[in-house]
């Protein structure tokens, strides 16, 4: 499974549409984690969604994003966890440990929207431990 987190100064970038870089974390079958940086190509939501798809991203954890961008990302078959904030490492750890639904990880006043849009509450297991990597 590949997870992408657009970032700025070590924190999740506040606005997905304005982010230039992202951390891509890949879980290898043998249990190792590979982490690398990628540039987010394209300025339109569609171009960005296509780029994420081309990179084989399965999950996008990001800050605020517009509905049109959210639709395009989800239409590309990528699981979306939007309106997230915080230091990248901490957010990734929280995601791995299935505790990314805490208030502190969401942009102010956006938790409900995040859960509705990203369907966060439907998670049942730690995705990094899954066999679909």
């Amino acid at each position: 499974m590949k997870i992408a987190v657009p970032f700025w100064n070590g924190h999740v970038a506040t606005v997905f549409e304005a982010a230039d870089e992202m951390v891509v974390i890949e879980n290898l079958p043998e249990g190792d984690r590979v982490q690398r940086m990628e540039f987010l190509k394209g300025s339109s939501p569609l171009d960005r969604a296509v780029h994420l798809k081309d990179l084989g991203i399965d999950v996008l954890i990001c800050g605020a994003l517009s509905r049109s961008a959210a639709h395009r990302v989800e239409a590309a078959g990528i699981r979306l966890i939007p309106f997230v904030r915080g230091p990248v490492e901490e957010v990734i750890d929280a995601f791995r440990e299935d505790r990314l639904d805490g208030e502190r990880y969401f942009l102010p006043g956006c938790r409900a929207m995040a859960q509705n849009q990203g369907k966060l509450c439907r998670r049942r297991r730690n995705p990094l431990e899954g066999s679909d990597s």
Partner: protein
Amino acid sequence: MKPIFSMTRTENIILDSIADGVFTVDRDWRITTFNRAAEQITGVSRGDAIGQPCKEVLKADICEKTCLLRQTQETGRPIVNRTVRIITASGHRIPVSISTAILKDESGNAIGAVETFRDISVEEKLRKKIQGRYSFEDILSKNPRMQQLFDILPDLAASGSTVLLEGESGTGKELFARAIHNLSSRKSGPFIAVNCGALPDTLLESELFGYKAGAFTDAKRDKPGRFRRAEKGTLFLDEIGDISPAMQVRLLRVLQERTYEPLGSVESVPADARIIAATNRRLEDLVHEGKFREDLYYRINVVRLVLPPLRERMEDLPLLADHFIRHMNAVQNKDIPGISDDAMACLMSHEFPGNIRELENVIERSFILCKSGPILPQHLPEFLWTRETDELCGLPAETPTIKQMEASFLISVLRRNGWSRMKTASQLGIHKSTLFRKIRALGIQLPDRKERDKPVA
């Protein structure tokens, strides 16, 4: 958290009665006050916003890279009406106009900053609606001749006929060709453009028709030509007036028989592409000069559209300049509000031999020199500051006499109307005999009849 200053109940009521969103931040960029309009625009409640970093509440596309509050704090100068886009708590991306200022205590020490912002979605929608009246596909114009072209374009596109576009370089021939393609039943097919004037004969032939493996030394495998790639779509042949007589014969055959043979092939391939040809020369003149085959001319000239040069549709210049400024603002992440009256006067007095492409280049160049505020004459290329135009651009010049000014004005209007005195008189709202009298009195020399009678469209 400790507030930077306490608000009285009256002050809170006043703040909440303001239609613009208002928030203040302390020196750590954390929100200390957040009025009702700010709640409504951002979708974030006051309780959620207070104490949070402002970028996480406002969620503007510029917050991280070019924070306006930080700029204000560093420069000490307020920012007024900068347009940015924010994402609301419900996921809507909306345009807002932001202004910022520093907050100081009684001793004049900076204790934070204040930001006001206004939702300008309605204004933007209205502006787009007004622009929509003057746009067609990607073409902008309110010129009557262009509007006539817009009117016939849908029917023309639906007809499937071969189209010939004539117009000077930079008048938007390819934009028209794309518009015809997009409006036609072939819109889901490809739009393939070839600049015939840019390629030597042999290369053009292999580009258009493709070749089979072994057709020549380096032809290791089959290569499809542009005709093949444009199948079920549109093939745009630009600069058709520049092709050689031999190439004209080959093209004529394709247009007549609707088949072609790739180089090295003995079998004919059906050509299922709509042809749109364009030229910056008058093909009819080339036919008269014997440089272009008459039979090919008539094959291509099923429907002919003549695109007017920019100097004959100067009423479009502000519209086009505004379009390019908005485009450059978006591309270069700048906020140039527009062009000053003096700079516009400079542009209006220029002939624009390079047409709209030249205007686009002029605006792009002005973006390099113009750091903020509107584009001024000094941001424009120097050739626009000639002595003939500098008095219009607000630059010092010798004062012309009233007679000279009147003559200069009449000449420019006559030129714009293709030297037609009837049209000029009509546009100026004066009787034609009055115009004739003025032309004589001012000693204006009209071009000879041949030049005058040349159609401008």
